[in-house]
């Protein structure tokens, strides 16, 4: 169970998780907390707490890097479908790292928190490959520098902003997807107003040596509880957000993955991203499959690998992630089907342990996102 495994890495917060009685599991090469102990712990409690108050997540396993140099941003654009030349300073944008066939190598956040290139956060399971790939292709004085001496904390939930404003009032001024470099808790921090739960909140990159002090400081507030990877997964599922390696992989394109919003207009018009031929054709209606949301209307939760069938029982696709939605009190899932079956309201079936169960195509997010949009000033 939790005995040390020398092949697995630990984040700077490992000791804090163990002290809190977390159940530790291997994830993406790290020993990570899947849920915490005690009467407030467990996936359901932690999930609900985050939706109602504020949850603190250790996401230090994710990959952080700076990409810098004279034309570093232009070079970075060659690997993805986002418009980063046009991204305003102080903002970040979600994008997809693409292979030459237009398949998704990873999804990522990249932003301009300072005057020095891009700050990039990628998935833990992909970070070595991503950074080797990007770093190996950068030319001239453009450089990728991994920030391995940094931890990454996420605070998420409707009370996250109130909690963080007590530590630093300036954080209240950030809008969704703002990205800044600032002094916070006495250290050099990268802060963005974003996350992966569908809630308002922040992701905060701090030096590893200060991570445990800052983690404990944030947890001093009664509104905040530590949240494990179990609830992180059920929260992102409710928010309709894909988990790379499950809901998208190197064979799926942005259009198939229903991530077409990540294709920035300037890049579409220029058709200058990897796999543009395929992806733009799919965008014009040629996709063979698309990612949909399903409400499983009866029976057991439909999980990754379960088949999706049409109303007559013919198998047309597969579930890529699914489970109970604690917020909605029903079973939800994501999966891929041909576009003809993707229309909202389409009656489908999911096959769980050989049994056909009624399901219906529904809109994602399953639970409304509550990102903080700054009021527009005239």
């Amino acid at each position, binding site marked *: *169970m939790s005995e040390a495994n020398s092949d697995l890495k630990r984040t700077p917060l490992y000791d804090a998780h163990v002290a809190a009685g977390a159940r530790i599991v291997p994830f993406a090469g790290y020993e990570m907390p*899947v*849920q915490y102990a005690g009467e407030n712990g*467990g*996936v*359901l409690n932690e*999930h609900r707490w985050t939706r109602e108050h504020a949850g603190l997540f250790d996401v230090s396993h994710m990959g952080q890097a700076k990409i810098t140099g004279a034309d570093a941003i232009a070079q970075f654009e060659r690997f993805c479908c986002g418009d980063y030349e046009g991204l305003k300073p102080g903002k970040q944008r979600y994008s997809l790292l693409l292979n030459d066939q237009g398949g998704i190598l990873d999804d990522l956040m990249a932003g301009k928190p300072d005057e020095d290139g891009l700050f990039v956060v990628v998935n833990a399971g992909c970070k070595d490959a991503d950074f080797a790939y990007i770093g190996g292709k950068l030319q001239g004085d453009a450089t990728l520098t991994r920030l391995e001496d940094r931890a990454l904390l996420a605070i998420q939930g409707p009370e996250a902003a109130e909690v963080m404003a007590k530590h630093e009032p300036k954080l209240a001024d950030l809008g969704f997807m703002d990205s800044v470099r600032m002094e916070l808790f006495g250290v050099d921090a990268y802060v963005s107003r974003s996350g992966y739960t569908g809630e308002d909140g922040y992701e905060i990159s701090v030096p590893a040596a200060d991570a445990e002090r800052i983690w404990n400081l944030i947890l001093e507030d009664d509104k905040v509880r530590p949240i494990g990877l*179990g*609830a992180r*997964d*059920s929260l992102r599922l409710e928010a309709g957000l894909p988990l790379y390696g499950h809901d998208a992989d190197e064979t799926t394109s942005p259009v198939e993955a229903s991530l077409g919003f990540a294709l920035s207009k300037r890049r579409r018009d220029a058709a200058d991203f990897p796999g543009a031929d395929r992806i733009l054709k799919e965008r014009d209606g040629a996709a063979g499959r698309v990612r949909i949301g399903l409400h499983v209307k009866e029976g*057991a*939760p439909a*999980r990754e690998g379960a088949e999706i069938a049409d109303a007559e029982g013919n198998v047309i696709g597969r579930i890529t992630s699914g*489970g*109970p939605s*604690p917020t909605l009190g029903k079973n939800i899932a994501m999966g891929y089907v041909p576009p003809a079956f993707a229309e909202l309201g389409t009656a489908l079936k999911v096959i769980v*342990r050989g049994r056909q169960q009624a399901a219906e195509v529904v809109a994602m997010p399953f639970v409304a996102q509550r990102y903080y949009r700054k009021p527009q000033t005239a």
Partner: protein
Amino acid sequence: MRFTKDHEWVAVEGDTATVGITQYAADQLGDVVFVEVPDAGKTLSKGDSFAVVESVKAASDVYAPVAGEVVEGNAELGSAPETVNADPEGKGWFAKIRLNDASEVEGLMDRAAYDAYIASL
């Protein structure tokens, strides 16, 4: 009550065994959100997957600790799966099985042996 290494318990009355999962198993699973129990009449060999218990995260098979015929599945778990967390070794029972061979139960661990076993995990 007798126990298996797969964390099922068995309580025998006459020729019928009530089976479920142990407190340890329920704690390890976390919040149970769905339980599928067998229908009456189903014939089980020892080691058959005869029920499924699902937490938020995953589905797990439950294996028949003894051979026999299902007399009753615990239908209440369908609408109240959380009973498995609240009272796994009582109201959270999964099925009653008419034993083919009552002596089969003798080969399973008693409470002391099971406690020693989970302490070793």
